[in-house]
């Protein structure tokens, strides 16, 4: 028979190997999300759209700014190589839709990213520190809110010319405001929880408190809001492009394609339909994903 110490060691080794991997709330949420058919389908479709947007131009013999003199307002056809037809200048719509998609998706994702980064930290800091800091930070936010956004964009564009970077800056500047408010509210409710008090008792610093205890607990809501923000940003960019404040020709975005398509819809409907289908599908997908995320991250809400 084994001696007691050897026995003990064997048991300890065994229990160490047995170390169970816990299932975090994120794991649970992922499982619930993948059980949501609408969200999963949307994710797959969105994957295909992204793939098309980035790989599409390579599949076509035309460049996005190349004018095909023999095919202006040409209808979609596989034989000519213009799968989605051409626009009024004879540029291939298949490639242009893909290029425009890049810009639109990028604007959407960037806007959401800026909102998540700045908004979360700003809101969490204001909510957690509280008191006078909170008041000053929130009043600053309100001043930014009251700033007429269109006016701001027009000013930027007239001073610096039409540039896609300016659109990013403009969208980034406004997108985080709502997020900061949402996160601040959530932070206020988490701040009162006992685990925050416990962390105060053993002297966790303010910064560690925000990044380790507050932010991970608001990320659920942030993730949901960010996915719902992406379509908002895409629409926003389209709106700017529609007004002619968006991207610079010959570069394009779904918004400016829609703009051109709308002008020629009576003679060449595909110029409106093609970008519209892509944009609407993308918006639907993002909304369904946002919905799915919300259900997955907050099961009590259903």
């Amino acid at each position, binding site marked *: 028979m084994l001696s007691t110490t050897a026995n003990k060691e064997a048991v300890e080794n065994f229990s160490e190997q047995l170390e169970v991997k816990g299932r*975090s709330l994120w794991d649970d949420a992922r499982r619930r999300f993948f059980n949501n058919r609408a969200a999963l389908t949307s994710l797959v479709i969105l994957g295909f759209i992204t793939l098309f947007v980035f790989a599409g131009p390579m599949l076509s013999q035309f460049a996005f700014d190349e004018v095909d003199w023999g095919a202006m307002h040409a209808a979609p056809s596989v034989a000519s190589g213009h799968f989605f037809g051409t626009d009024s200048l004879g540029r291939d719509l298949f490639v242009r839709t893909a290029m425009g998609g890049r810009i639109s998706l990028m604007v959407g994702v960037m806007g959401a990213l800026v909102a998540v980064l700045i908004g979360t930290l700003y809101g969490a800091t204001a909510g957690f520190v509280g008191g006078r800091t909170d008041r000053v930070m929130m009043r600053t936010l309100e001043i930014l809110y009251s700033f007429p956004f269109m006016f701001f964009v027009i000013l930027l564009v007239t001073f610096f010319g039409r540039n896609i970077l300016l659109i990013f800056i403009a969208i980034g500047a406004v997108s985080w405001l709502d997020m900061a408010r949402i996160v601040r509210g959530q932070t206020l409710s988490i701040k009162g929880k006992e685990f925050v008090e*416990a962390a105060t008792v053993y002297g966790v610093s303010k910064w560690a408190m925000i990044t380790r205890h507050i932010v991970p607990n608001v990320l659920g809501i942030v993730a949901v809001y960010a996915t719902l923000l992406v379509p908002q940003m895409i629409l926003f960019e389209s709106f700017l492009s529609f007004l002619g404040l968006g991207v610079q020709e010959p570069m394009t975005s779904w918004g400016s394609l829609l703009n051109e398509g709308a002008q020629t819809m009576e003679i060449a409907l595909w110029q409106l339909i093609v970008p519209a289908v892509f944009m609407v599908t993308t918006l639907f997908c993002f909304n369904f994903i946002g919905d799915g995320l919300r259900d997955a991250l907050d099961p009590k809400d259903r």
Partner: protein
Amino acid sequence: MTVAEKELLLDVQDLKVHFQIKKENAWPWTKPANLKAVNGVDLQLYAGETLGVVGESGCGKSTLARAIIGLIKATDGNVLWLGQDLTELDDKALRATRSDIQMIFQDPLASLNPRMTIGDIIAEPLRTLRPDIPKQEVSDRVQAMMMKVGLLPNLVNRYPHEFSGGQCQRIGIARALILEPKLIICDEPVSALDVSIQAQVVNLLKQLQREMNLSLIFIAHDLSVVKHISDRVVVMYLGNAVEVGTADALFADPQHPYTQALMSAVPIPDPEVEKGKDIQLLEGELPSPINPPSGCVFRTRCPHADAVCAEQVPALSGSAEHQSACLRLDALQAG
């Protein structure tokens, strides 16, 4: 061992915690109301002993605990920890004493960060206050501590929601103990648990107290639990300590009318005795701490109150083992 021979750890002197309450639609120049949550409490805690704090909801027990540990700023008074006044120290200086005083909370699940694993939760105090300890040693200590509080060490990677209330409270205890503190403040640690688990947790605390030579401040409204665990007991009413004494003396001979009423309300697990028991019901509600009664705060509900009680504020008096704050104590004991 008499009280005088023990080392005095914590000396709370005339501690006051007042909150400024602003009415919702008040004018900016109206003075905020002053809510006196804790209004002049004196406490002494000696090494290795357990001090029970009892009282009904809203009497300031939790506020007292939070003021001692510094979660709430005290309005007035001193909290002397080994002779050093904690209320005077700034955040940086407080860090040094943090590892001496730790706390266990009422809601076991809410006191654990839902996004962190158990191992990370228990290790966090060590990582925060002793960053010099190598990783391997931290994880060894965490595992040892988990064994000590009756958790399997292979559960380190689990998350709080995967545990029961009793287990969560054990995790909370492990987190409080990992710094090897001298004092643990237990803020109603068993109120959220069912009775059989309560017993387990209370006995675990007692056992750990013996092993690690801990002092405990044990807040509860369950008198039987307090009687079981405490060496000395403080009875609080509306922010004031009305009676202090060793558990034996206080439970055998409650002097203050409020303590007597509290004791008589404890159900006795014997239907025959319970039927014949004379429960001393207190009239009315707990008065508002914004506007406490003059003189003795208990006089509005006290069956023995007379005109003097409205004028004079009673002080704690009596022997070292047993003190109570009642103006009519002599008359009551005589009658």
